[in-house]
């Protein structure tokens, strides 16, 4: 049996589902709201009201427009997508269509693959409001950096795949759609909790937390493409889809299905561990190179082969910690071959820390060490160069010009709040009238 036939069937099922059309409607409205709000804020920062404009270099479409606009999809993926995916499985289970499908000359794995392809097609369709927003942004004279756009879409697509995999696995494992929805919701809340608990704690917990859907998106939103994150998300997605297929084999004994789950779990764990241990490649696709030191600094740091151990005496919610993580540690990990970071404090806010060392950061390179309170990039780099006994390279100023745009999102309200719902309504009505005409002629 051709995969194309299976995909056609799944697309027809998606198109027949109210949940999918509702998802499209809400995604359009949310995207519109996010885009209009982002445009207004960007215009204000660019000085539209006659007030002082922000420094041009600080005005990046990635932060100001792309990320907030696509952010609408995070909400849709978290709260709406699971219902669309769960329906694809749960409806076939409850109507006993699954019992027919299991007798088709196509393995259930192949049928799950068809569902995934159809879901990806649905995802591409659901991105239409985002593409409309991008087109409007360009028509206003806004700037886009293609690698940033593609990287962001890739991140959200991986997020979509992971959520779809979890929802599909839950729908296959659980007896009803409501139970599956609860499982997916519990997973989402669990990852939020992990994200919250693990921040700034270091160790395995922080490593795990860096792969939660929210954390992975943050990287893509910064214009960072981490190959390990991409691979781990793909592994977890494939694990979820495989788990779904395993539990839909009704003819297998419970023992066989549990054994299958164990095998899949072991394979996924081994693959993930391999990725975590072996893959460190990442690409800074941001136009302003916000995830990288200057080329001169990167070259110098790459030649410091000794392990750099950094002990951060800052609590996880201290704003300096956030600065240090994003502006220094992230770049150091990308630039130096061996960096180890220790987070010795257990408190979250730092308000009740009695440790006299609070606020300091210790750098140890070989037998030498240095202490500093600064979280500023240049000062940290100078401390490391001093420890390594190398001369700090000359640093050029950033060449990023910034892209201010003091324009209101004229027409966006009409497009997203009127034309988009009207277009969807027209498609639904034309489908219905076609069906009615067919029924009449019969």
């Amino acid at each position, binding site marked *: 049996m051709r995969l194309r036939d299976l995909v056609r069937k799944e697309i027809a099922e998606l198109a027949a589902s109210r949940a999918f059309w509702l998802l499209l409607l809400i995604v359009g409205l949310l995207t519109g709201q996010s885009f209009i709000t982002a445009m207004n804020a960007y215009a204000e920062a660019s000085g539209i009201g006659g007030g002082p404009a922000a420094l041009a270099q600080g005005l990046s479409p990635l932060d100001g427009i792309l990320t907030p606009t696509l952010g609408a999809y995070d909400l849709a993926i978290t709260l709406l997508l699971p219902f669309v995916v769960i329906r694809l499985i749960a*409806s076939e289970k409850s*109507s006993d269509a699954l*019992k*027919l499908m299991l007798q*088709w000359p196509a393995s259930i794995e192949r049928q799950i693959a068809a569902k995934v392809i159809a879901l990806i097609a649905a995802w591409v369709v659901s991105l239409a409001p985002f593409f409309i927003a991008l087109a409007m942004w360009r028509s206003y004279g806004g700037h886009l950096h293609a690698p940033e756009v593609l990287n962001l879409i890739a991140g959200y697509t991986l997020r979509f795949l992971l959520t779809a995999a979890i929802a599909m696995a839950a729908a296959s494992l659980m007896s009803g759609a409501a139970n599956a929805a609860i499982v997916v919701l519990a997973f989402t809340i669990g990852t939020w909790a992990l994200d919250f608990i693990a921040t700034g704690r270091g160790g395995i917990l922080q490593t795990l937390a860096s792969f939660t859907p929210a954390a992975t998106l943050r990287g893509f939103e910064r214009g960072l493409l981490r190959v390990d994150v991409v691979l781990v998300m793909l592994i977890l997605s494939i694990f979820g889809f495989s788990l779904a297929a395993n539990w839909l084999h*009704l003819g297998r004994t419970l023992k066989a299905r549990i054994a299958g789950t164990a095998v899949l779990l072991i394979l996924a764990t081994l693959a993930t561990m391999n990725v975590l241990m072996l893959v460190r490649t990442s690409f800074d696709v941001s136009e302003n190179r916000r995830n990288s030191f200057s080329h001169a600094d990167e070259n110098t740091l790459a030649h410091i082969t000794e392990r750099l151990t950094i002990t951060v005496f800052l609590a996880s919610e201290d704003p300096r910690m956030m600065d240090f993580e994003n502006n220094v540690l992230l770049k150091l990990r990308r630039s130096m071959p061996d960096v180890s970071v220790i987070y010795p404090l257990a408190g979250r806010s730092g308000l009740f820390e009695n440790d006299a060392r609070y606020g300091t950061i210790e750098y140890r390179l070989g037998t030498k060490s240095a202490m500093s309170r600064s979280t500023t990039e240049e000062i940290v780099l100078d401390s490391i160069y001093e420890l390594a006994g190398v001369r700090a390279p000359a640093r050029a100023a950033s060449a990023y010009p910034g892209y201010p745009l003091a324009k209101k999102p004229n027409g966006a309200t009409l497009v997203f709040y009127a034309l988009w719902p009207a277009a969807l309504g027209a498609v639904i009505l034309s489908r219905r009238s076609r069906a009615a005409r067919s029924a009449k002629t019969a």
Partner: protein
Amino acid sequence: MSLAVAQLSARRGTRQVLTGVSFTAHRGEILGVIGPNGAGKTTLFECVAGLLPFEGTVDHDLLFYVPDAIRPWPDQTVRWTLELMARMFGTRLDETLLDDLDLVALQHATVKSLSKGEAKRLDIAIGLAAPRTVLLLDEPFDGLDLRQTRQVMEVLRRDAANGRTLVLSIHQLSDAARVCDRFLLLDHGRSVAEGTLDELTSGVGGLEEVFLALT
């Protein structure tokens, strides 16, 4: 021989539903599986179709099983469903099926909008649309009125005459007696009798007497 089941045993959860069931079905015959409620007829069909784990052996040609009272893909139309079934087996929908089962007028109706009897006729059409040499139908006459029952029996008879083996689970003994060539009587998960109507009823009376005597 199209279907041979030997010493088939199966559980649902912790409950033993079938114990050592054996029977055969031959090419072109209609085998009726009869028995009281809870005898294990549906479980037997699901095991034979590979939809439930079991112990024992099942040898069969390519087969297809249609469960009782299903409404697959409820948001799609009758035609879409039947065309899908045919396409999934690499064939085209035989339009005479729609005619034979009075589905022409319903072909553009959604599955969820069908009445019980209409849905039953769709289920039978689904089974017949699958180009398989053995077809298992669970309660094919349940929900049909007398005229429709006779019509469906006629369709099934014709199909069996074309060489397909039909295994039907039937709780209405009068229907079973009218359409089946042979019978398998199940009780409490065991096969208690197998044979033609004459073989089963010799010296006892009718099929109902056999049923009451053995179950």
